[in-house]
């Protein structure tokens, strides 16, 4: 499906209460268009739940429910198994959660569902912190970022650990499909959701979704930052289909400092910090490249 072929009908209506410029809203709105009406969705407590479904006003025009914080994959499992019993096996079952609810507290349920190869689509929208509760660091927060639990202080500043590589952890589960995407890379985004919809078994897509409120950037720059993330190598666009890894976009290797510039969460970083991050990016990219060459 090309961009211009996407349907006009919104299955995620305007009027929702996401912050202006929210990357997650861009993701939700567009992915449900690609997946279509025959989809059921579960979300944990997260920004998406709050801004898309505050009783009795709902943005979703497909069945959507919420249970708790850490069990998105478990609930998607329950929905899928029940639909199968009811003879509606072709319905797409999607669990969509943030990075906190996936990489941290949601990890157990995610890993269990992946290991069982449950026939569900799991989407992690990655805004790189626990945004709903006011910007706390998660396993997916990048090195050096300011968050309210890694604040800029007189003695210490910023996150001290590097971003957890969830895509590769999911690849190690040997599930049929794992992919990374970004709201700034339109055709790649559409392709991946289209592909995932058709595959049976456990599918995982991690979408890069900048957050103006938490990353301290201009609301207009959400898409620009996606492009910087991919061009610098901070975020690799790739996919793993039945063990075969394909890099979808080779990074230009723009200096990481360019990526950091528009974001207030990095403005305290020292030259040494930036070099550390740059080294990590180079190492990460080399590893990603090798993986693509190996897993063919």
């Amino acid at each position, binding site marked *: 499906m090309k961009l211009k072929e996407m349907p006009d009908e919104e299955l995620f209506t305007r009027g929702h209460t996401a912050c202006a410029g929210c990357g997650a809203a861009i993701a939700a709105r567009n992915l449900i268009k690609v997946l279509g009406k025959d989809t059921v969705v579960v979300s944990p407590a997260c920004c998406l739940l709050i801004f898309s479904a505050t*009783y*009795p006003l709902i943005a979703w025009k497909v069945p959507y429910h919420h249970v708790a914080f850490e069990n998105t*994959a478990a609930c998607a499992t*329950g929905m899928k198994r029940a639909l199968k019993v009811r003879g509606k096996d072709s*319905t797409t079952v999607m669990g969509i959660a943030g990075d906190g609810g996936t990489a941290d507290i949601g990890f*157990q349920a995610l890993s269990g569902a992946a290991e069982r190869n449950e026939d569900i689509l799991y989407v992690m929208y990655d805004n790189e912190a626990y945004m709903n509760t006011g910007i706390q660091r998660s396993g997916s927060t990048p090195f050096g970022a300011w968050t309210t639990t890694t604040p800029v202080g007189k003695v210490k500043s910023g996150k001290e650990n590097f971003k957890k590589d969830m895509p590769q952890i999911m690849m190690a589960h040997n599930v049929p499909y794992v992919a990374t995407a970004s709201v700034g890379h339109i055709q790649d985004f559409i392709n991946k959701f289209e592909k995932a919809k058709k595959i049976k078994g456990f599918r995982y897509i991690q979408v890069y979704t900048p957050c103006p409120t938490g990353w301290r950037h201009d609301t207009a720059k959400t898409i620009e930052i996606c492009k910087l993330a991919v061009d610098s190598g901070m975020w690799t666009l790739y996919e793993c289909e039945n063990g075969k890894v394909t890099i979808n976009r080779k990074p230009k290797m723009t200096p990481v400092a360019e990526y950091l510039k528009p974001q207030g969460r990095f403005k305290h970083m020292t030259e040494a910090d930036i070099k550390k991050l740059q080294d990590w990016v180079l190492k990460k990219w080399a590893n990603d490249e090798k993986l693509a060459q190996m897993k063919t």
Partner: protein
Amino acid sequence: MVKKMVTGNYAAAYGAMRSRVKVVAAYPITPQTFIVEHLSEFVNNGELECEYVEVESEHTAMSTCVSASATGVRTFTATSSQGLALMHEILPIASGMRLPVVMAVVNRAIAAPINIWVEHNDIMPERDSGWIQVFCDNNQEVQDMVLQAFKIAEDKRVALPMSVGLDAFILSHTVEPVDLMDQGLADKFLPKYVPPGPIIDPDDVMDVGVFTPPEYMMEARFNMDKAMREAPKVIEEVNAAFAKQFGRNHGGMIDPYMVDDADAVLITLGTASSTAHEVVDDMRAEGKKVGLVKLRFWRPYPSAQLRKIAEKSKAVGVFDRAVSYGVSGPSFIEFKSAAYGLNVPAMNFIGGLGGRDVSLADVRFMYDRLLEAGKTGKVKREITWMGTRGVEQ
């Protein structure tokens, strides 16, 4: 009629199979594990057609049941002790979303100290979870109550999840003769599942469990309370219907035995009820007027019925297999609340914790104390810690 010697765990699994559960979430924990194992055998042998999910934790087990139930199918799981505690977060979600999930709970002590034998302190913290809760004292009852649980929970007047409790090892692992029910009779009693409320369905869009502001909360909670108040009526109806169809009557909310003219009445939960039953017979033969109330349903609580019995008794004792530290056993607390204003001497016997046996002699001791209190009108000791070394009895 197929009468076989089976364990309580087998009986629970069999009841679930006869209830035609469609999604089962399975996770092991002693002493419940055999329930999910038996179910896996039923499934893999083609006797039970259902989606069997070998989940990776109890939290996931209950979550899977909740979402599956919300998507319109009959669901079942089983747990004990620490597993129930891990599910704790999801239990009020099941009841708040008004989903008729049924769960077998093999009552086992909750840590610390870590212990695998019977105690009721795993289910007691779930008192206010919005789940309907029943305690069984024999394996026949266990099987039967699983079927009845679905019927009660799925009733539109109720629409609340329900747990069926059985004591660790005493029922779970002990074989007893059980009339394993016929599928045809079970189907007649429990027909095809009709969800009591709106469900997740791609062809009929609705959303549930979403973020809810204060304006709707009082009404939501009131409706749950209302359902819990309607439940006793439904419980009695289901019990009567079951007795009619299967010829077995386990009693409704309570099962009173010889209480009408009793000088001393003991209220018990779980298998102690069964032991006490024998002691009542022995003591009655000796001319002592003792009676027993098997407290079956913990939630909803049979306040009115217990109060009526207390009004006519000379002394009432409550046996607790759990403690609310610093106060008394929880069943005693509930009883005192029901008996508020009455002058009847009341005593609490805390015993059998962590699997310590409750013997015939123990029960006799309780009745002797009660008969004494009934005669003198005075309570010698309000709370007795049965057989606890270093503590005055």
